[in-house]
């Protein structure tokens, strides 16, 4: 018997690859894309046990996608990296929204018709629709949120997938063909569709950092070379770390330190002198000197940078970093107020047709907050 709720459908089990008796609302994965994982705002409180925070590389886009479908800002969504998945709707209907790097969004209906949708607007899908998300042209990640969220049991307080630890998300791994991602709702609500205008998801050229904690492991000349140099996101970058090509950084007294803690955004410099910015799936401790740390307000933009993007680093004071964080938090709090109904004349009837196939039906399993 498949169980939902407390234990989650797939917790610790092999996934059914092709189970004809599947009866829960879900998105069935026809193609997984390059690296599609379930992520939320991450897992706090377990780093002392060696468990990284994980979570969305670009939490601004994650929260925007959630705001568009009326979810809590930190609800779990699909994080899509570089090449999107193809998903089939196995639910009465579902409202989704994508936010992040631009990619072609194509929907093929069961009747053979095809349409395209856009980033930063919610839309509804019906049973049998196939949603194909193409390649991200200029960014690393894109998020897909579903109204009501995905029915994924949290592990240690978060639904985020941590692939190296093989837990969280769907079986602790990236989505693959045959997977079914359970939806919390069996049908889209009647709230209507929304759009979000003016959200700045541009790729930054300069990333702000606070120097240290191990600046003293480098000469002043090396530190200023780091701040004046231009870097490029190197192949081999992943959710653990962004590898950088550019000016190599020489250590004053070796590349080994007695391991200490690391933060998301720590810029460590291993023996070869090529810096690595540690990201969401980073280890919790590290034995390389850290020349600087990306400020928290710039982490979402950093997470958006794809392989090949150019960037440089600018030192700022703690006061600047703290007020930038405050400003970002204000922005995020205002996201819900900024989404506006998509009420182009003529659309209303279609929208009702899409979303209101069965009135009065809400959630299959649990109330949606």
């Amino acid at each position, binding site marked *: 018997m498949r169980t939902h709720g*407390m*234990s*989650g459908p797939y*917790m*610790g089990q092999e996934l059914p690859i092709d189970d004809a008796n599947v009866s829960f609302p879900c998105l069935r994965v026809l193609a997984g894309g390059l690296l599609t994982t379930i992520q939320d705002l991450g897992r*706090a*409180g*377990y*780093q*002392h*046990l*060696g*468990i990284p925070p994980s979570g969305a590389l670009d939490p601004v886009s994650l929260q925007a996608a959630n705001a568009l479908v009326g979810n809590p800002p930190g609800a779990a969504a699909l994080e899509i990296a570089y090449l999107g998945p193809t998903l089939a709707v196995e639910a009465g209907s579902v409202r989704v929204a994508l936010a992040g790097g631009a990619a072609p969004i194509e929907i093929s209906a069961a009747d053979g018709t095809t349409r395209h949708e856009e980033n930063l607007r919610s839309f509804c899908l019906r049973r049998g629709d196939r949603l194909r998300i193409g390649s991200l042209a200029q960014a690393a990640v894109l998020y897909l949120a579903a109204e009501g969220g995905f029915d994924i*049991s*949290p*592990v*240690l307080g978060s639904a985020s997938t941590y692939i*190296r*630890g*093989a*837990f969280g998300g769907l079986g*602790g791994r990236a989505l693959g063909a045959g997977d079914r991602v359970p939806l919390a709702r069996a049908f889209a609500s009647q709230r209507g569709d929304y759009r979000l205008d003016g959200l700045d998801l541009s790729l930054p050229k300069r990333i702000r*950092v*606070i120097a*240290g*904690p*191990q600046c003293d492991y480098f000469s002043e000349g090396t530190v200023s070379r780091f701040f004046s140099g231009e870097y490029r996101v190197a192949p081999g970058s992943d959710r653990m770390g962004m590898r950088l090509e550019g000016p190599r950084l020489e250590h004053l007294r070796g590349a080994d*330190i*007695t*391991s*200490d*803690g*690391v*933060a998301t*955004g*720590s810029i460590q410099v291993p023996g070869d002198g090529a810096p690595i910015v540690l990201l969401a799936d980073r*280890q*919790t*401790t590290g034995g390389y000197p*850290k020349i600087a*740390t*990306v*400020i*928290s*307000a710039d982490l979402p933009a950093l997470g958006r940078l794809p392989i090949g993007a150019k960037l440089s680093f600018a030192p700022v004071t*703690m006061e600047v*970093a*703290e007020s930038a*964080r*405050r400003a970002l*938090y204000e922005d995020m709090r205002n996201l819900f107020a900024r989404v506006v109904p998509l009420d182009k004349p003529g659309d209303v009837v279609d929208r009702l047709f899409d979303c209101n196939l069965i009135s009065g039906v809400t959630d299959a399993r649990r109330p949606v907050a």
Partner: protein
Amino acid sequence: MPQFKVLPAGDTALVVEFGETIDRNLSAQVLALAHRLKQEQPDGVIETVPTFRSLMIHYDPLIAPFASLSARIAALLKDTRPLLQPARLWSLPVCYEEEFGFDLSDVAARTGLSPADVIERHSSITYHVYMLGFLPGQAYMGDLPAEFDLRRRDTPRTRIPAGSLAVAARMTCIFPLETPCGWHVIGRSPVPLWRHGPAASALLAPGDKVSFTPVSMREYAALSARAIDGALEITPRDIAVEAAA
């Protein structure tokens, strides 16, 4: 009051650094501060990560900015003393047979000991868990005697099995998951240090004490079978902790 430095690690983490080496007294100071922060729960502190010689504090500066949190920590350190409460002592079975400890004869050659002496010395120590890191549930335990001050392998193995027990630089670790590894593998433990699932958990915690009990291949197989069934219960006992100098 111990000597310490507060170093910013961005705007949401700071490092309270007590020294730059692996040292039991530094570790005692790190763990004492971690314990104190757990008791005091200062506003804004999200979590702490003890390491060999420093405590990393992850915090929200919108609740406690760097300036006020570092002042609070300095004030707490004025009357934070090393813990004297009991520590948990774990006795973990380990099979040191060469089939599992495939670097045992290499370690013997490097240390100038016989393989039997390597096992004897390794299993006669009560280890201190300095920190967890690298993999979920992976504990760094020390200290081995000076002859075990081994450099890591020049070419790390691309993978070692979960449960492998290894040594390097006077430290020993059990690797909870299959992983690439540059350490020297001398045995394997059937005890899962990391449990998957909704109630995922780590067996060991910083500050714990650990000793290893050699078991035969046959005992290993029996213990391993029980572990797979979830029926292998390993419980620690409390022991008094030596006061740090």
